[in-house]
């Protein structure tokens, strides 16, 4: 008996098993793209911002292109929910080839690589780490206790624009009526995501529930001066699958220096706009509680996103909508 003998028992998985598992993982991807785990929400906020940033550069008016750089600054103040189909969402996932960093290759330069997340003991430490006052809910449902605080480090990257690469990107989505002008070549834009603090709350026992609150200064994108942001947004919306005419109308009606698109697959979630302490917020509700492994019990997972005083908040929990709403109203 030797290594060869021991290895002789090695087998490739059955093809049928591998195929079915891959299908299951596709389903998992589709579900995760929605909102069941708070990460995809934030992830797609970032992706949406990046997509808008990149495609927006297409419309840089040549007359102003050579002027000043980085005069326009994007910050999240409002959220614009956009219904999209899961198939389209999958197209813009890294696993399906829409990996912007990969696609853009050398055009993306990481300016600040985030350090590993760090656990913190107090809100004061979190405030110091985030560089902005960290808020807590003054009210929680009965039985909930804070179970941890951690902070994700800041992250920044610079994108050098290139018309030919960006046109390939547009072509990949079948958009043939909008092209990137060569005048954008060599211009740069930066995206900066500030430290994000996560506070976890949990109720143990038979009626176990979880709530988490993420907050941090609004992500920022510094754009080359003179971008036509409405057209930028229109292109971003087209990438997300919105019909041409609707994308144009939608894009013209929004202030894109302060509004971030939140793609929400219609198959798996619903949403409505709400008021959170006088600020426009967005409530996203999962279609099924079965979609969350960690929130398997209780009501379906819901998310509330809002922005206030330069910070962005995301509250997630498998508690009734009225309780989650009440928690959001009491974040102060």
């Amino acid at each position: 008996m030797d290594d060869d003998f021991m290895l002789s028992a090695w087998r490739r998985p059955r093809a049928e098993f591998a195929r079915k598992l891959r299908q299951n993982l596709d389903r998992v991807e589709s579900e995760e793209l929605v909102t069941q785990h708070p990460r995809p929400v934030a992830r797609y906020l970032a992706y949406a911002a990046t997509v808008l940033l990149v495609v927006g550069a297409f419309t840089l008016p040549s007359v102003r292109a050579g002027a000043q750089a980085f005069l326009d600054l994007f910050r999240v103040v409002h959220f614009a929910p956009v219904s999209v189909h899961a198939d389209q969402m999958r197209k813009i996932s890294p696993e399906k080839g829409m990996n912007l960093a990969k696609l853009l290759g050398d055009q993306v330069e990481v300016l600040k690589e985030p350090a590993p997340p760090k656990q913190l003991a107090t809100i004061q430490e979190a405030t110091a780490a985030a560089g902005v006052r960290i808020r807590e809910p003054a009210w929680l449902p009965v039985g909930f206790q804070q179970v941890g605080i951690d902070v994700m480090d800041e992250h920044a990257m610079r994108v050098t624009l290139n018309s030919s690469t960006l046109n390939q990107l547009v072509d990949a989505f079948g958009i043939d009526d909008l092209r990137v002008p060569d005048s954008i070549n060599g211009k740069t834009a930066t995206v900066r995501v500030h430290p994000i603090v996560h506070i976890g709350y949990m109720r143990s026992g038979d009626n176990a529930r979880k709530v988490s609150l993420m907050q941090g200064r609004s992500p920022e994108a510094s754009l080359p001066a003179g971008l036509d942001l409405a057209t930028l947004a229109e292109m971003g919306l087209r990438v997300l699958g919105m019909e041409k005419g609707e994308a144009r109308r939608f894009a013209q009606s929004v202030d894109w220096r302060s509004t971030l698109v939140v793609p929400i697959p219609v198959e798996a979630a619903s949403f409505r706009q709400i008021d959170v302490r006088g600020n426009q917020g967005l409530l996203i509700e999962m279609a099924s509680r079965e979609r969350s492994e960690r929130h398997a019990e209780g009501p379906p997972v819901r998310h509330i996103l809002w922005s206030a005083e330069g910070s962005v908040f995301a509250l997630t929990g498998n508690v009734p909508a009225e309780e989650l709403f009440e928690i959001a109203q009491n974040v102060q």
Partner: protein
Amino acid sequence: MTSDVSETRVMWGDSAAEPDWEAVYAEQLPRVYNYLRYRMGNEALAEDLTSRTFEKAWRDRYRYRRNLAAYSTWLLRIARNVATDHQRTSHEHVALEEAAETPADGSPEEEAVLTSNFARLSALIAVLPERDRELLALKYGAGATNRAIADVTGLSESNVGTILHRTVQLLRTRW
């Protein structure tokens, strides 16, 4: 901080470099599957636990950090936890002969020999201490190096080598 909290951790703005998860799946599926097959000694159970491993990994993949572990090590850790959780909740020890149901590549005669040999080998592995089965599964199922096994198990690399050598010797004497 509890693990529950870390599981709900959100990362806004991870590294710009995203793993190619399609490639990870293609490359790691056979390794994870064979790790569980060697460890559990049961084909159907190995498939079930492989599914659980990948589904868990897929749900958590945005938390994967390249600078902390290789994909293979990260996946094997998940697979180990899945297997351990299964063993904790199930006291079932399945007959190991099922593990040899999948046809091998080769002639019918060769397949018959390999099938018979693996059934016998599985029976011998099944009575080994849990730690030794684990190391064999990592070594021959997952194809992990001794160093990678040390990373996953917390044992020293030299200790891994010693235990594996002794275990294979023991199997040899019992063969």
